[in-house]
């Protein structure tokens, strides 16, 4: 232990990182790998009134489009997501959970395709109608509504 404190030491991952050998998420190729593109909300608060993925589904190479309407089953209550660092009150963010928009650019659909550019292209074909609500980005103004921990 003592000889290492204060001594410059090369990182064990140094060689891999400077040669490009180090692999990061998204760099593991497997057979049948699919690619995703996220569609995000253009409003900051409100609801999805209608989401139409029919045109996106028609794109050659698209495998599926996930929205709140057809997503896999998720735990219904926030209790399932609690851990030591989760806040006592409030609920966790569950992507594609329902039609509620909570913030600008919230993910509202995931396009799955055989190639990345196809997923991105099809994502632009997802049509969304919103019921827009007024939003606030003024923290000070909303301080009275904050959770007190």
């Amino acid at each position: 232990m003592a000889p290492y404190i204060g001594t410059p030491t090369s990182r064990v991952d140094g060689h891999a990182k400077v040669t490009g050998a180090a692999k990061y998420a998204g760099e593991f190729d497997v057979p049948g790998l699919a690619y995703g593109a996220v569609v995000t909300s253009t409003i900051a608060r409100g609801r999805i009134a209608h989401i139409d993925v029919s045109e996106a589904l028609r794109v050659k190479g698209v495998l599926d489009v996930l929205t709140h309407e057809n997503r896999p089953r998720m735990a219904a209550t926030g209790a399932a997501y609690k851990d030591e660092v989760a806040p006592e009150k409030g609920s966790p963010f569950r992507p594609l959970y329902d039609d509620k928009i909570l913030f600008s650019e919230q993910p509202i659909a995931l396009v799955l395709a055989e190639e990345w550019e196809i997923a991105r292209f099809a994502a632009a074909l997802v049509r969304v109608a919103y019921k827009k609500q007024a939003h606030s980005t003024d923290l000070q103004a909303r301080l009275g509504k904050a959770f007190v921990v």
Partner: protein
Amino acid sequence: MINFQYARASDVADAVRMIAADPSAKFIAGGTNLIDLMKEDVERPSRLIDISRLPLKTVEETADGGLRIGALVPNSDLAYHPLVAQRYPMLASAILAGASQQLRNMASTGGNLLQRTRCAYFYDTATPCNKREPDSGCSARNGLNRMHAILGTSESCIATHPSDMCVALAALDAKVHVAGPGGERAMAFADFHRLPGTTPQRDTNLRPDEIVTAVQLPAQGFAKNYTYLKIRDRLSYAFALVSVAAALELDGDTIKEARLALGGVAHKPWRDANAEASLRGQAATPATFAHAADLVLRGAKGFAHNAFKIDLARKVVVRALTQAARGTPQSQSNKKIR
């Protein structure tokens, strides 16, 4: 990004033929702005005509002592070209003040002229933008407009032209050579870019079926007394809040000729004939410079987040003229402003 066709032009005439045949096609050279805009679905050309291999890559001296720069000369090559460094150092300085070296290696002379505004609302297809979609509205006027224009704005648009190179070209009175189905023509640099007016969707006076072939510089390069001073939020790699290209020809302490162009403040590089006239024949003093600055900024109009630019621009004009007069141009690597 749209599903587009890709084709290569074999020569200038071929390029003109291809673009004339397809109004929804676009030329691609360096691609540093166009591909960015295509990824955002702001630009949606049905076809890209690759002109990157056309023989428009030379820098040549002209008979009148000027310089003719091919439209495909990369920005970095132009900045480091011995004739530019020696005779038009203000142009070299302005180019090096912009973007990054990677981008300068890719970007072409023609593309730098034709690059589009970086207004965040222009980029965001979910917001109204008269430049992107005529008559949809201008989100910047009552939105976040810190980077936007203070001169030459209209009810329709307050965007700025982002180029540094163009500010120097404006100050140098460059000419833009273009070719179209009808033949070749040359435009004064001041006539190339437009003010927004009621047609902000048109950035330039280049016709849809024309291609920029060269930029030509006159003989006078102001190599002795010049500066390109760029003020921005970071020391490097950021667009200008305000930038000034200032060039003087001095006879002792008297200004014989003056050029002043501002970037970051308008839809095109901004020159003011009255301000330049006010400098000619005067002594190169702080008072002279301050008077010219006041003339340039007369009529400047600020918006909620960019009114600071008016006083900033005044100061940058004075500082730039001072640097030019002293023969101490701003260094683009040592950032201290002396």
